[in-house]
């Protein structure tokens, strides 16, 4: 697994992921709006949701965004525990924010004529998008926030010394 030490590279990767998720959700939305009713539509819906579920499962087992900045360790040290706690708290706030926004939209649509009421297809799109975004949220937050990493001890010595000065120096 490649560890991306540069924060800008990690942020670019996260941006690409999330833009991709949004396009995928829009594609699903288009699929729902074009399909008809009856058994073919039902089978199509089931395939879309099962396909998304299997895809997410595969990605979560093989490709974790948090590994681009935190090495796979069996035991987290004190800094990593702090990072995890902050990340989970931030994820919680984002999820609550999404739910409040949806609640606001449905309430506004109920009472205000110029606000469009969400249809069943809208909810399907929102559910797909939320599923994709929220699944990767903690990993994405860690990868987004972690500063540029110190070089790995497995890297060649010359690369390490170029990237970072030696630990102990007699004079500066």
């Amino acid at each position: 697994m490649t560890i991306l030490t540069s924060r800008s590279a990690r942020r670019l990767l996260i941006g690409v992921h999330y833009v991709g998720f949004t396009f995928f959700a829009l594609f699903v939305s288009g699929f729902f709006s074009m399909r008809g009713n009856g058994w073919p539509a039902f089978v199509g819906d089931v395939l879309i949701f099962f396909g998304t579920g299997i895809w997410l499962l595969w990605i979560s087992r093989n490709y974790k965004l948090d590994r681009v900045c935190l090495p796979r360790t069996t035991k987290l040290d004190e800094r990593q525990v702090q990072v995890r706690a902050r990340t989970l708290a931030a994820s919680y706030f984002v999820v609550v924010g999404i739910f409040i926004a949806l609640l606001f939209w449905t309430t506004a649509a109920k009472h205000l004529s110029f606000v469009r009421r969400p249809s069943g297809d809208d909810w399907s799109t929102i559910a797909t998008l939320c599923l994709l975004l929220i699944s990767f949220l903690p990993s994405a937050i860690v990868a987004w926030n972690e500063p540029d990493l110190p070089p790995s001890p497995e890297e060649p010595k010359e690369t390490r010394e170029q990237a970072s000065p030696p630990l102990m120096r007699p004079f500066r």
Partner: protein
Amino acid sequence: MSRQELALQVGVNYQTIGYLERGDYAPSLELAFRLSEVFGLPLEMIFSREPFEPLSLAHLRSNGATKP
């Protein structure tokens, strides 16, 4: 001593040692004491709330020089 060796001795990830060096992370008292034991130095010689004076200046001063 490499980061990896120091990290193993104090029981943290090597990246945490890197963040400590760069001042991106403030250690717990427990970790600070462990580092102090490894280096055999008092805490105030390893950590400070103010930036440390370069060793070259301290060396010159100890030799009686008034200016670096």
